């Protein structure tokens, strides 16, 4: 029997993976070839999707990008025996430089097998972390996470161990429990690492949340998942059900007497609900309005109880740390940014995908060595790092090492590691306008500078673009941005000025296109 792998993640499906899988199945049936078609997760090399892999005696070989219309020729060229007689032949999958050069901790399993296969998960080190955690005290688990140097991967980069310590040290109200909330509202454009982690390795996240529950004494967890991710929703729900059935979740985890239950909750298309306090409001069934801090969610979070709110990748990193030890994780990284970050190459890029590496690689290395330049073939001009609230970087900043502190020094943010590339056809004044427009759409409305300032921001940028009292309006925009930065409760209003001001500062010429 021949094992054939066709991914089932969102991007592969969006590129026709289902049709490819169907064509392979039909061919095998028609020609009486005994195959086992496995719908694996994606390896994250999205430029090669649909990446079809065939298991041969010397290992797995890959073909890609396979379009549904290629499949007939591929099968005729003996794809099923791993033949190299096709222009789409890529050879040994793991030797593809894009993959071979990565340091895969959190994405070690991505794309290897059926993401819902518990036997595969357990055979590849899965649930070893949980088994170990069940023999440890909560404090010992918190210490391990502290020593790993893990910082929140959602963008704010707060030390995870410290957050967990706070929740560990505070008691829930009588008759109540503490909570583990996974922020899976990955709304930043140019980011899809959370999505891939959930679609390609859902048990790793579930295990990480369960360990977090043991560490801080929480018995209940929620994954707050954006509704824009229907595939992740399907896969996570199924994974939670299977983990429950196998005793990895529930009232008596692996017969330890410990309880942890988990539910996936669907968000409702609101960007600001990615902010942790707005997220908690939304989970409670309210409008996603940002809360004033303090109290911190760690002390008074979901329904007023101590709550860990962590990003998908933060929680997904935990099983590795507990299994391999804090040092193994801390050994990789740069400065105070320890471990790996899955960078995401997106936008106008030839080879887009997930690149998991230790911190410290430069933007240029990522965009050139991995990304291979623009998709359009035109020169790169601007790069937005860290989502819609992240700065636009001109070429002079592309040698900045990718770590939290180096980016902060350039008045930029690393955020969730999303890298959106634009070629030289971009109009940066239009991008600046969009940043304000997005804030108009998505502001929760609580703070005046964000709610009203964003609307005024669109208007003033329109006047600058139309060359109306240019100098006065630029001064006004700078003032407005300062007010938004200083006067907003959360990053929505507080960081919208980052892309706006970086566009104005580094690409000022684009604001002078209007007729004088």
């Amino acid at each position, binding site marked *: 029997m021949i094992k054939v792998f066709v991914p089932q993640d*969102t*991007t592969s*499906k*969006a*590129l026709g993976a289902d049709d490819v899988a169907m064509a392979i199945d039909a061919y095998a049936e028609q020609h009486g070839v005994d195959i086992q078609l496995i719908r694996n997760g994606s390896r994250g090399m*999205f*430029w090669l*999707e649909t990446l079809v892999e065939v298991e041969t005696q010397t290992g797995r070989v890959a073909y890609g990008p396979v379009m549904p219309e290629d499949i007939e020729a591929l099968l005729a060229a003996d794809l099923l025996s791993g033949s190299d007689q096709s222009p789409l032949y890529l050879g040994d999958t793991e030797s593809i430089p894009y993959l071979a050069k990565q340091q895969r901790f959190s994405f070690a399993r991505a794309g290897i097998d059926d993401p819902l296969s518990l036997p595969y998960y357990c055979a590849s080190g899965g649930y070893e972390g949980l088994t170990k955690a069940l023999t440890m005290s909560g404090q010992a688990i918190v210490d391990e996470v502290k020593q790993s140097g893990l910082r929140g991967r959602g963008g704010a980069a707060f030390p995870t161990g410290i957050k967990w310590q706070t929740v560990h040290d505070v008691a829930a109200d009588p008759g109540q429990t503490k909570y583990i909330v996974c922020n899976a509202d*990955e*709304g*930043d*454009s*140019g*980011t*899809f690492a*959370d*999505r891939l982690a959930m679609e390609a390795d859902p048990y790793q996240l579930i295990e990480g949340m369960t360990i977090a529950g043991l560490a801080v004494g929480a018995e209940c967890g929620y994954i707050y998942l954006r*509704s*824009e*991710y*229907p*595939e992740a929703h399907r896969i996570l729900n199924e994974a939670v059900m299977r983990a429950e059935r196998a005793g990895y979740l529930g009232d008596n985890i692996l017969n330890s007497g410990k309880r942890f239950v988990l539910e996936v*909750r*669907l*968000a*409702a*298309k*609101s*960007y600001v609900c990615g902010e942790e306090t707005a997220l908690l409001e*939304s*989970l*409670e*069934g*309210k*409008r*996603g309005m940002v809360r004033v801090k303090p109290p911190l969610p760690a002390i008074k979070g979901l*329904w007023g109880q101590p709550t860990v709110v962590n990003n998908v990748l933060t929680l997904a990193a935990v099983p590795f740390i507990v299994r391999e030890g804090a040092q193994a994780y801390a050994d990789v990284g740069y400065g105070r940014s320890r471990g790996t970050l899955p960078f*995401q*190459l*997106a*936008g*106008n*890029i030839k080879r*887009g*995908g997930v690149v998991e590496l230790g911190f410290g690689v430069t933007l240029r290395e990522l965009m050139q060595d991995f990304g291979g330049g623009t*998709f359009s073939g035109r020169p790169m001009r601007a790069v*937005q790092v860290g989502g*819609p609230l992240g700065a636009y970087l001109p070429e002079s900043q592309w040698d900045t090492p990718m770590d939290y502190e180096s980016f902060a020094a350039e008045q930029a943010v690393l955020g969730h590691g*999303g890298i*959106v*590339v*634009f*070629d030289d056809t*971009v109009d940066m004044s239009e*991008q600046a306008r*969009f940043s304000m427009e*997005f804030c108009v*759409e*998505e502001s*929760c409305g609580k703070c005046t500078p964000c709610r009203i300032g964003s609307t005024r921001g669109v208007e003033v940028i329109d006047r600058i673009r139309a060359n109306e009292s240019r100098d006065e309006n630029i001064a006004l925009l700078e003032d407005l941005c300062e007010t938004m930065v200083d006067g907003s409760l959360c990053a929505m209003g507080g960081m919208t000025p980052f892309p706006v001001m970086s566009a104005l500062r580094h690409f000022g010429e684009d604001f002078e296109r209007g007729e004088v």
Partner: protein
Amino acid sequence: MSDVLPNNSIQALDPELWQRGVVESVASLKHKPGALLPILHAVQGVIGYIPSDAIEYIAKALNQTAAEIYGVVSFYHQFHTAPGGANQVEICRAEACQAMGSRQLEAHAKASLGVDYHQTTSDREIRLEPVYCLGNCACAPSVRINDKIYARVTPERFDRLMDDVRTVRVEVK
């Protein structure tokens, strides 16, 4: 309420849909902590929007005011208070898609469908909505049609997809 909301009551209009979409959704979910979003998703999943009488019904079930429920419904881009088309088409407006020509794509889509965002085509087949990121940013621009996502959508491909959506619909009938 009647000042803000269009009267889209369905209880009298379609009792079977009311029972299945509202009564059963509320009954099966109202015990959950923070039940409102799951209930709204369930109601809209069956009916396609949140009818005005459903808002009153949910409010009673959760011991909240109708104004509170409407406040939540109107906060989230997800929820609609009026019927739309048989299919929902969402075009990603976020930066990664912009870098790959989504501004041209959205202009094309609006022109070829003859609607703006949040509107439904005259044949009631397609409601056009913006979306801010589908997580498919490495292969932009992206479009979502109901629960399926499509990558690298050119204007020509968009037209073919719209043809397919309408054809499939006709066959089902």
